[in-house]
């Protein structure tokens, strides 16, 4: 099992991440993945992502470990960018390696739902007219995360 967690300002490469992830073993049959990008619209120019150094890495590490246990993953990579990101830029990458596709894709959804609700990141929006505003938490994210509740919160 290879767990890799990174919080970084720089861009990442899926092609570069895959070989690292695949060290997880020959028994793996597939990688589920989600790549989040800055969604445009409503005059949005950029997002600035802030986080809680230390706690972020710790929470993401726990989310990855929980996904590994729950879905029997052979590997899990979670990379989250911070700093200023313009529309269309990648924000987050989740890769889950499993024996079968259902586990790989379910684990990916699980990690994303928990990242949205349990990892200490905050987004500030920056619009074409110069206005900025902190993004408010979406109730939909709490609902999405709650569908995984079994023994309570991860970690």
């Amino acid at each position: 099992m290879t767990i890799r967690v990174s919080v970084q300002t720089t861009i990442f490469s899926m092609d570069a991440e895959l070989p690292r992830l695949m060290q997880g073993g020959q028994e793996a049959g597939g990688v589920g993945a989600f790549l989040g990008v800055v969604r445009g619209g409503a005059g949005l120019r950029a997002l600035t992502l802030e986080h809680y150094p230390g706690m972020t890495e710790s929470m993401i590490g726990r989310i990855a470990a929980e996904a590994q246990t729950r879905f029997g993953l052979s590997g899990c990579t979670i990379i989250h960018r911070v700093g200023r990101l313009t529309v269309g830029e990648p924000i987050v990458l989740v890769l889950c390696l499993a024996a079968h596709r259902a586990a790989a894709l379910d684990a990916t959804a699980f990690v994303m739902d928990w990242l949205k609700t349990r990892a200490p990141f905050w987004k500030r929006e920056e619009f074409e007219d110069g206005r900025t505003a902190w993004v408010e938490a979406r109730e939909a994210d709490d609902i999405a995360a709650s569908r995984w509740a079994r023994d309570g919160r991860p970690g």
Partner: protein
Amino acid sequence: MITILYFAWLRDRLGRSSESMPLPEGARCVGDVIRSLAGREGEYQAVFGTQGGVVRCAVNQEFASPEDGVRAGDEIAFFPPVTGG
């Protein structure tokens, strides 16, 4: 002493990202610290009093509730609901 961290709009509103202070006298839980901060003038009162309902908290980098205990040496962080991913 305790270390207090502020993130996102709390930091913007309060004009600082961290501060060190003695554990307020008699304070035994996060709620006691919040009440102490709400007792300050200006933005602190608004952030921790009026709008305190949306403020989230972590003690030593673990999510915490107002009932959770605090003691000298703790790192206590206040922030809005998270919006990552």
